[in-house]
């Protein structure tokens, strides 16, 4: 196991204050470091999750961040896997510790997905995160591909527009108690009919926003953690990743996130838990329907649409999903997303999450889930409460 001795994130939003990704990385890192009880000289490796040099205009971002954070001399690595970038960076940090190559690792996820480029440019770039030669050149957008995948899922599982609205309302309502959230909203049902159709059935309200921001973790080998954190800190007990064919049409069923199921099973097996053990989950809801498709793939419910309608994923439900607001409510600075999800789970397991969102019951295990493409590059992390949380 690997301890999460420090966890923090900046607000996820559209920055208009003249700050940049190096500022946000520094803010998230310093907060996580302060929580960890270790010194920067104790850190053996810096792993940076950042999706695209097009956003930062900085190749080898880990080198300049190591300089900014006072970590020169440490091993540095940049990780990229589309929407799964942040979670894969967490996995790379875990691997460093489990292999014995590092005792303390800083993981930073960061992307300026909102403020540095025009929305049209970002949309074009995201189109290239699918197969550039087949899908990307056609001009197809992420929203259109997710819409086609949802249509197949809805047909097979009885999904309705009302279900997309319900996911949106739930996540943005959760975000209202999250001071770091990009889109805290109390939506009214009639707003959806007036929202522009982006790619049927997805209207604008069903889409997650483009955000700026950073998140950071300080990971530690159990025997290297400061005494004050050793028992209390939550643990990363399982990690799993898997891939699928990038082309939706290439898959046996475009409705199913098969790679996510494989990634989750690997993480469950490593942690020695089953889906029924998961008390809270931060799930990759780039689009409203993707949350339900992910829940199905993760095995969190055999009938996710019925469970949604029954309120199982609500803040007071049996397995709250996206208490942070998820991508739809909290926001989506791509590289920071997975690191932020893991930080959220760690803080909840330790009882340190935002008032109003911190569950009032003891939590045993939490799950963080991301993917790149439409369920193509999948990464799942299981966290477990510390001994004295």
């Amino acid at each position: 196991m690997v301890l999460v001795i420090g966890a923090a994130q900046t607000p996820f939003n559209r920055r208009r204050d003249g700050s940049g990704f190096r500022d946000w990385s520094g803010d998230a890192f310093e907060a996580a470091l302060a929580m960890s009880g270790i010194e920067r000289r104790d850190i053996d490796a810096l792993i940076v999750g950042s999706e695209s040099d097009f956003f930062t205009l900085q190749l080898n971002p880990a080198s300049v961040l190591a300089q900014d954070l006072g970590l020169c001399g440490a091993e540095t690595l940049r990780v990229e896997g589309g929407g799964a970038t942040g979670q894969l960076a967490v996995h790379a940090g875990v691997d460093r510790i489990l292999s014995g190559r590092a005792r303390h690792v800083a993981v930073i996820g960061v992307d300026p997905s909102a403020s540095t480029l025009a929305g049209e440019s970002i949309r074009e770039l995201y189109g290239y995160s699918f197969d550039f030669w087949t899908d990307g050149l056609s001009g197809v957008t992420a929203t259109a591909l997710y819409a086609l995948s949802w249509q197949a899922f809805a047909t097979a599982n009885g999904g309705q527009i009302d279900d997309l609205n319900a996911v949106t309302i739930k996540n943005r309502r959760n975000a209202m108690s999250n001071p770091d959230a990009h889109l805290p909203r109390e939506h009214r049902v009639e707003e959806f009919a007036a929202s522009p159709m982006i790619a049927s059935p997805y209207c604008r309200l069903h889409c997650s926003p483009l955000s700026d921001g950073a998140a950071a973790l300080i990971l530690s080998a159990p025997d290297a953690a400061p005494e004050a954190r050793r028992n209390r800190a939550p643990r990363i007990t399982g990690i799993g990743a898997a891939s699928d064919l990038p082309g939706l049409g290439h898959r046996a069923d475009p409705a199913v996130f098969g790679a996510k199921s494989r990634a989750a099973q690997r993480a469950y097996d490593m942690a020695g838990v089953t889906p029924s053990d998961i008390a809270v989950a931060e799930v990759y809801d780039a689009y409203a329907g993707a949350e339900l498709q992910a829940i199905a793939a993760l095995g969190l419910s055999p009938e996710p649409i019925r469970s949604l309608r029954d309120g199982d994923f609500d803040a007071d439900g049996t397995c709250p999903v996206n208490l942070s607001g998820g991508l739809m409510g909290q926001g989506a600075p791509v590289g920071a997303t997975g690191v932020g999800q893991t930080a959220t789970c760690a803080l909840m397991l330790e009882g340190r999450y935002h008032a109003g969102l911190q569950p009032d019951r003891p939590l045993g295990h939490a799950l963080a889930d991301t993917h790149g493409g439409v369920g193509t590059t999948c990464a799942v992390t299981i966290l477990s409460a510390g001994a004295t949380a």
Partner: protein
Amino acid sequence: MKRNVTLEYALGEGWLAPWLDGLREGRPVASTCSACGDAHFPPLRVCPTCRSRCDGWRNLGGGATILCRTQGTDGDFAMARFDGARIATIARADRLPEDATRAVLAACPDDPPFLSLVTEPRT
């Protein structure tokens, strides 16, 4: 601070060249696996059925069946399966009637070419 970067890429078409040539001419050219006989459009380098290297090309010739479709401000796109292909593809559908269930590949002389569907001619 503003910074404008203009990038002009010269992309090698490599093993995908026969497929891209087909798009330019309106011919659905699939990669084929001689081990199991499957044809893949868009092409795959390794057959997902038997994991053998795809070692040939075949002009599928016929039309495609529209499986599902999405429309909105992002454009009009369809998932369609070409006759004879094992897998489906994503294509532009903005030149198809809304109720179309069948289509053919449009010739696309643009550089780079892309997948676009048009109405199947009456026979």
